């Protein structure tokens, strides 16, 4: 009952947000002379894109760690699977010789982009349509591959509990990274080198024939995909299965005694979480415009875990909020800590390359020590309730007058 009332305002808010994103990234082309921050090259858009991608991964990790109570650290591994699946499937055949030049070309010449261009044509609208379709299908397949591997690894690993599960999944992610860098697999994974040349976020910008951008969508696309995926995760969490996940988190023995199959539900949660981590990995590849195993280290998993902890374990809106704060701090607001600063003639001490991470560590310690619940705890931002409160307030104000 409570949910139904909230669906409409929540969806409206998300739509408005998405429209705002489109407006924000195009405003500089309509109104000239805006400050640097609104230009397409501003760090604002880097932050927004990266945060959109990371928020999906953080929410997927929260589904596992916060809602099912499985402490898993394999997120980077599943992102890697997603990123490579996406990259390998969408690099056009014409680019492959160049990308895989060390290995004398790719082992297979298939590309989703080429396949759809064969159907819809290679120029104008046909090309755009085939690119979008290819990306969508590649994203879904990226998730499926990650989910499939999660299923395989889940059979032995999900028998483990807490720390042991974390160690096993972390090990799995590291092994995957090593395998993808293996030279023998070069014709498929390009060894330790990066795969590039596939459609990225900026490929979604609408351009005219000569390549001038008419409408920027490069920030909108990650927002759209992430929010769709997060909506699905929220729907799952609020369904009967989501409640079963939470019962496992709260008390495994009671859950089992009430007929919740532990193995089945843990597996479901693990596979679904990995699916979205895979999609997130593919989006990450689009964001950095390359896919390279080196990027998906355990540090990335810790980063995401940190976001989940800061946001509140067991809160989707907390995770999203924390992602934007974290990414903004690490990529933008706290950047100044990494370079020498002068105030007047005074050189600020301590500031040098790497100092940002020191500050971060302190922030984390403070959060863990004093705000172990994170920003949101396990509550959610309830847009319906917020609007209601607002209207109650205005009602009261009107009555006073």
């Amino acid at each position, binding site marked *: 009952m409570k949910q139904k009332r909230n669906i409409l305002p929540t969806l409206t808010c998300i739509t408005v947000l998405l429209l705002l994103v489109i407006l924000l990234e195009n405003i500089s082309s309509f109104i000239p002379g805006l400050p640097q921050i609104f230009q397409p090259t501003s760090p604002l858009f880097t932050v927004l894109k990266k945060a959109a991608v990371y928020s999906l991964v953080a929410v997927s990790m929260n589904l596992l760690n916060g809602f099912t109570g499985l402490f898993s650290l394999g997120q980077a591994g599943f992102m890697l699977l997603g990123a490579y699946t996406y990259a390998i499937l969408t690099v056009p055949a014409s680019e492959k010789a160049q990308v895989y030049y060390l290995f004398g070309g790719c082992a297979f010449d298939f590309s989703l982009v080429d396949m759809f261009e064969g159907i819809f044509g290679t120029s104008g609208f046909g090309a755009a349509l085939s690119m979008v379709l290819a990306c969508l299908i590649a994203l879904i397949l990226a998730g499926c591959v990650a989910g499939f591997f999660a299923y395989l690894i889940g059979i032995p690993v999900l028998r483990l509990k807490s720390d042991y599960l974390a160690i096993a999944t972390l090990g799995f992610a590291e092994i995957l990274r090593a395998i993808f860098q293996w030279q023998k697999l070069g014709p498929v994974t390009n060894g330790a080198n990066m795969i590039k040349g596939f459609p990225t976020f900026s490929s979604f910008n609408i351009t005219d024939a000569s390549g001038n951008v008419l409408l920027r969508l490069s920030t909108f696309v990650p927002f759209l995909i992430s929010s769709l995926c997060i909506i699905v995760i929220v729907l799952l969490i609020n369904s*009967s299965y989501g409640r*079963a996940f939470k019962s496992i988190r709260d008390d495994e023995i009671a859950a089992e005694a*009430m007929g919740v199959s532990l193995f089945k539900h843990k597996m479901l949660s693990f596979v679904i979480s990995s699916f979205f981590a895979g999609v997130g990995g593919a989006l990450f590849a689009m964001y950095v415009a390359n896919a390279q195993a080196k990027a998906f280290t355990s540090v990335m998993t810790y980063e995401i875990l940190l976001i989940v902890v800061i946001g509140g374990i067991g809160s989707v809106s907390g995770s999203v909020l924390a992602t934007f704060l974290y990414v903004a701090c690490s990529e933008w607001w706290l950047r100044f800590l990494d370079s020498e600063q002068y105030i007047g003639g005074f050189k600020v001490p301590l500031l040098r390359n790497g100092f940002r991470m020191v500050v971060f560590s302190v922030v984390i310690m403070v959060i863990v020590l004093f705000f172990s619940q994170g920003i949101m705890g396990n509550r959610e931002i309830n847009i319906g309730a917020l609007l209601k409160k607002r209207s109650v307030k205005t009602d009261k104000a009107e009555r006073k007058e």
Partner: protein
Amino acid sequence: MANALHLENVTMQFGGVVSVNNLTLDVPEHKIIALIGPNGAGKTTAFNCITGVYQPTNGLIEFMGKPMVRNHPSGKAAKAYKGENADKYISEPVLSPTPDQITGLGIARTFQNIRLWKSMTVFENVLIAKHLRAKQNVFSATFRGNLAEENRMREETMELLAEQGLDGYKDELAVSLPYGLQRRLEIARALATDPTLLLLDEPAAGMNPQETAELADFVRDIRKKYDLTVFLIEHHMDLVMNISDYIYVIDFGSEIAQGKPEEVQNNQQVIEAYLGISEEEAV
């Protein structure tokens, strides 16, 4: 009368300790049967064997006439095995269903130390137990393909809460309820899985005489209303003598007596097990 539950030569051995020794008992349908015994007698272990939390070392458990759990000592356990009938079930296949499968067959239980889902409301606690019988898969549940099913679950949960007099507390956290109501909620949650056999593990633990008396009526009511068979462990002799149709007494894992309440009450062995033997008599 047919047996809802039948235990045969059930032995549970942990390392060198035999917690349940060669226990054989019958729980006839639609009756209230009690299992009593002093502390550490192995009552809860017997329950855990029935509900699949433990796999018994040896023995057979039948539910509704069909073998449900069956095991015989093998490998290391066979060498260390101290119980009887080690070879009785050796030729038959081992059956060891998981607790959720056993709940699926129609056995629901409550716990000695209440195990409610702490972060969830009273309503959610019962609603989750409905998940077992929900006719929806993960896709139809996520994309709300079967709203009728979801609504049915919610309505049935409300009905169940209303019947148990818990509807006034539905949006409160389960742990914020008073102790007696938490017990009642645990029973309501067990009922939500549509059981035919209800196992109650010390339902009156920590209750005052007033609450215990209410509980006796409550158990009788639900047995009638849901056509249940009830099998309970209890320490409160008043309650046991009041509601049971038949009583099994165990001590140190083995059965020492069985019979109707009045028979057990006057059984010398039972009195000794509970009160101890006076030194003069022992000498």
